[in-house]
């Protein structure tokens, strides 16, 4: 089962490597990982998408919590949450027909064309992983995908619940 974990930790050199090292050392899977400082610059927030049954997840949460730098970890999948991922995708757009199609599909997915070259469009789409997959699939039927990059998901709980110190 896919899980989204949110981790709040000290913004110290080496903190991220400890998390990543822990996952590889204990053979836990990382599907995606995003990290950035928070509004409090002494803190970083990591979102990790992983998978595993309840026992595996329990171990992941406990092991991550055990790291000295980690302040809190929460499993967002447990409750209602907002999940987003950013996709930037470069598509071959040789002729009017393709350009129109790409624009049309981007609009349907509420994506934006953020850069245009002589023969390529770069499109930005945000959403959950499924939506981005669907976009790539739809657009691939119309033209060639030249390059794509995805941010990995970030997530936040809905409502009053907050992950903070």
């Amino acid at each position, binding site marked *: 089962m896919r899980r989204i974990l949110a981790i709040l930790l000290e913004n110290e050199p080496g903190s991220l*490597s400890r998390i990543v090292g822990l996952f590889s050392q204990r053979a836990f899977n990382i599907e995606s990982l995003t990290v950035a400082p928070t509004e409090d610059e002494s803190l970083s927030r990591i979102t990790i998408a992983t998978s595993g049954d309840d026992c595996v997840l329990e171990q992941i949460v406990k092991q991550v919590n055990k790291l000295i730098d980690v302040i809190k970890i929460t499993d967002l999948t447990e409750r209602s949450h907002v999940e987003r991922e950013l996709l930037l995708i470069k598509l071959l757009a040789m002729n009017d027909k393709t350009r129109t199609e790409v624009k049309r599909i981007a609009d349907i997915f509420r994506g934006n064309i953020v850069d245009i070259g002589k023969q390529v469009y770069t499109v930005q789409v945000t959403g959950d992983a499924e939506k981005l997959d669907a976009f790539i699939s739809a657009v691939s039927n119309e033209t060639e995908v030249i390059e794509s990059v995805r941010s990995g998901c970030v997530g936040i709980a809905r409502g009053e619940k907050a992950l903070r110190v």
Partner: protein
Amino acid sequence: MTKELYTGAEMVVKALSALKVKYIFGYPGGSVLDIYDAIFNQDDVEHILVRHEQAATHMADGYTRATGEVGVVLATSGPGATNCVTGIATAYMDSIPMVVLAGQVATSLIGDDAFQETDIVGCSRPIVKHSFNCRKLEDIPNIIAKAFYIANSGRPGPVVVELPKDMLIPQNKGEFHIDTDVQLRSYNPTVKGHPKQIKKAVQTIANAERLVVYTGGGIVLSDASEQLTTLVERLNAPITNTLMGLGGISGVHPNFLGMLGMHGSLEANKAMANADVILALGARFDDRVTNNVQKFCPNATIIHVDVDPTSISKTINAHIPVVGLVDKVMAQLMEEMDATGYERNEAALTNWWQQIEEWRSVNSFSYQAPAEDDKIKPQQVVEAMYEITKGEAYVCSDVGQHQMFAAQYYPFAKPRQWINSGGLGTMGFGLPAAMGAKLAFPDSHVICITGDGSVQMNIQELSTCLQYNLPVVIVSLNNRSLGMVRQWQDMIYGGRHSSSYMESLPDFVKLAESYGHVGIQINHLSELDEKLNEAFAIRNRLVFVDVLVDEKEHVYPMQVRHGAVDDMWIKKGEKA
């Protein structure tokens, strides 16, 4: 008045002194020479010069296991630091508090593949509780204080502190400030068990008909042996210890069933397999205990008390998890028993003990005593050592058959008396660990029980023993082979002894003598007692006793591979 300024190197030593460190174990080298210079100029902290940094870590570890004080290691960058890795991993696996101060090249050179540069924080990341890089010399004292606090609280473990050369040099100075009362917002280990879980645990214990108390190294680490004994006596429960927990309750206590697990006693493993409630205290269900986890204690309700939440339900699902320090939780359990008017189920206990006595009568720690002219059995040597030292010695072991024989045949009366590398199984641990224990307790008998394989992994430390006058008694059960490897090859690999023979062994007597010590060889059964007595009578010099034992002897009992906890070979070709 101008404030006094100190170099980073001076701050390191002042911090150690403020933390009441008596000894540091290490080896000098380019990047830490400033620290060595600072050590030279003071008398608070004594440095012990080993011959290999791995030995420094094991020596600090042995000192810690014997005393409970945090062991401190100092190594230079690169090869010095990487030589510590095995010792750090050893401490990590057995939850031993240790602080390793590792030199590093100057910050301007980091990442340049500079002379004697390795990323020691990276190298050691999977085997430390935490690590620090020092990037400002004023931070050094507080980083060291934090390192000590982290190493010695919660589930203890090793902490690495990386000290770049430019933080230490005389050109840079700063004010010294240390805050020994450490608070960390991201690290607050749970101390007391949750009251609801304590209630549940006591209820479960009260309803048990076949309770077993299963304890591990946590009892030793938290010096909770008296409490444990009280609890066990109050419950009149059978108790078994892991290899790491030996001495947690007296080895001759009537409720003690002996060690459990791979080479545990039949009664301990049988009791575990047939228990309806297991009270696990500071033990982590290691695979050397559980054997096949699928077949482990199928009918038992498991109460698992551990300070480390990750140890709970990692391999064996705990029905009642209790996170907390084992001594605090035991006190809570007793309070709850008082409050709820706990009474023993005597009828069930009588049945249970009757059953256990039946298993006990098999006497699974027995061996075929040799005829007069036969080769010496290794078990006899351990028994003789027990007699001579009246069971009061610190016994430090290496890893292999001799380790198991020592665990089986030397009943430890007290915690911290048995010092061995349980989790990592590090050969070469025994001698330096014994040196650490001897340094702490110079008037006590400190034995290093070893084998011809293990002892050669850090034998250079005989030199350190001479320099610091550490008269340990080394007893080598010399079977001219890697005994445990050979045993597995006999039992599992059809007797194909691939690379398990030690050919061209040194003359250990001459070797000991060349290092300035006393060497004694015991060849025949008839001279065993006399020569061992002679060896133990020498108190002011190190004695290396090379005992030629029967190379064919196996360690029994032994769990059948992939079987249940009580599937055991009792002796050659005979299952329980």
